[in-house]
């Protein structure tokens, strides 16, 4: 069997002389070399371009783009100083109004109305001593004139005429010499 097979191979070899029988057009290969050179070049060239990017560039770029492209929602920042300056006069006015309302307009206020009758005599005397500089002689005369019921209470008899004259001269107040008084 093996012998027969070898015989057939030899027979084919002798008949075909390893030729397939296909033929190509004349000058085909010289022209084809030119035509295919582009494709041959592509095979020789690198597909990598050698460009590199910084580490984590693609990770960070997303946020950078979003920050620049997407308009930020505007958050209105109000300065504390501006608020204070705006509301301080209002607050002050309100405080004063409240204070006055509590103290003067509130009917439940415990502050009693001050009248001359409610004052103790010692208080009046103390006030007169403390404020004597502010009271003129005329003030005293006016007050005393209306309240002197009994002239004898003054015990004018005990005052000498010389003393009265000296006192008048010392005061240099001629109004006391007015006869109407």
């Amino acid at each position, binding site marked *: 069997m093996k012998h027969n097979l070898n015989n057939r191979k030899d027979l084919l070899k002798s008949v075909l002389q390893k030729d397939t029988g296909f033929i190509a057009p004349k000058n085909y290969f010289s022209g084809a070399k030119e035509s295919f050179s582009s494709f041959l*070049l592509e095979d020789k060239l*690198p597909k990598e371009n*050698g460009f590199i990017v910084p580490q984590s560039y*693609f990770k960070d*770029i997303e946020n950078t783009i*979003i920050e620049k*492209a*997407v308009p930020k929602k505007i958050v209105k920042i109000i300065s504390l100083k501006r608020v204070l300056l705006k509301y301080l006069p209002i607050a002050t006015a309100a405080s004063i109004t409240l204070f006055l309302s509590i103290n003067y307009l509130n009917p439940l206020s415990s502050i009693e109305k001050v009248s001359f009758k409610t004052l103790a005599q010692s208080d009046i005397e103390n006030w007169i001593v403390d404020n004597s500089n502010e009271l003129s002689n005329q003030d005293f005369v006016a007050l005393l004139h209306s309240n002197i019921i009994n002239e004898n209470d003054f015990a004018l008899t005990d005052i000498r005429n010389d003393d009265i004259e000296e006192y008048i001269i010392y005061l240099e107040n001629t109004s006391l010499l007015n006869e109407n008084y």
Partner: protein
Amino acid sequence: MTNEIVLIAQLKNVQTKEKAFRELISIYKERLYWHIRKIVISHDDTDDVLQNTFIKIYKNISKFNQESKLFSWMYRIATNEAITFINKRAKERNVDISEMHELLASSLESDVYFSGDEIQQILQQAIATLPQKQRLVFNMKYFDEITYNEMSEILETSVGSLKASYFHAVKKIESYIKNKTD
């Protein structure tokens, strides 16, 4: 596709816009970054352009009429932003755009964010010599493996024109590399 429709609807709704936008960034940030990076070369410039791209997407999402895919629309914005950026830089430095691209490619040697070997550097320099459209097409087809149909939608150019651009780009790159390495 369903997910994309839902995402677009969320992006157009004021209540869900921010959350959807976060998702959008998360999905597309890397793809858009690499697309921009291949145009502007430097990482710092890419970072600026990428941020501007997403800001533009956020602001204009209401105008997106869904005639194209969301990704194509975003890719188009990124491409325009990157090209505008390069043009602006060229104007500032008083050089023309092709010169600007070559300057950028030559700066790779000292770029801390470039770790490519010699052949990768030569390839970038070769790409920099290409006209703008060919450069875009080559990058999108060769590195990003975007189909011609998708590319057609993004760049609003016919598939045939894109194929021709790619073919010319490859030929020019081959020629540049041969000159450099011989």
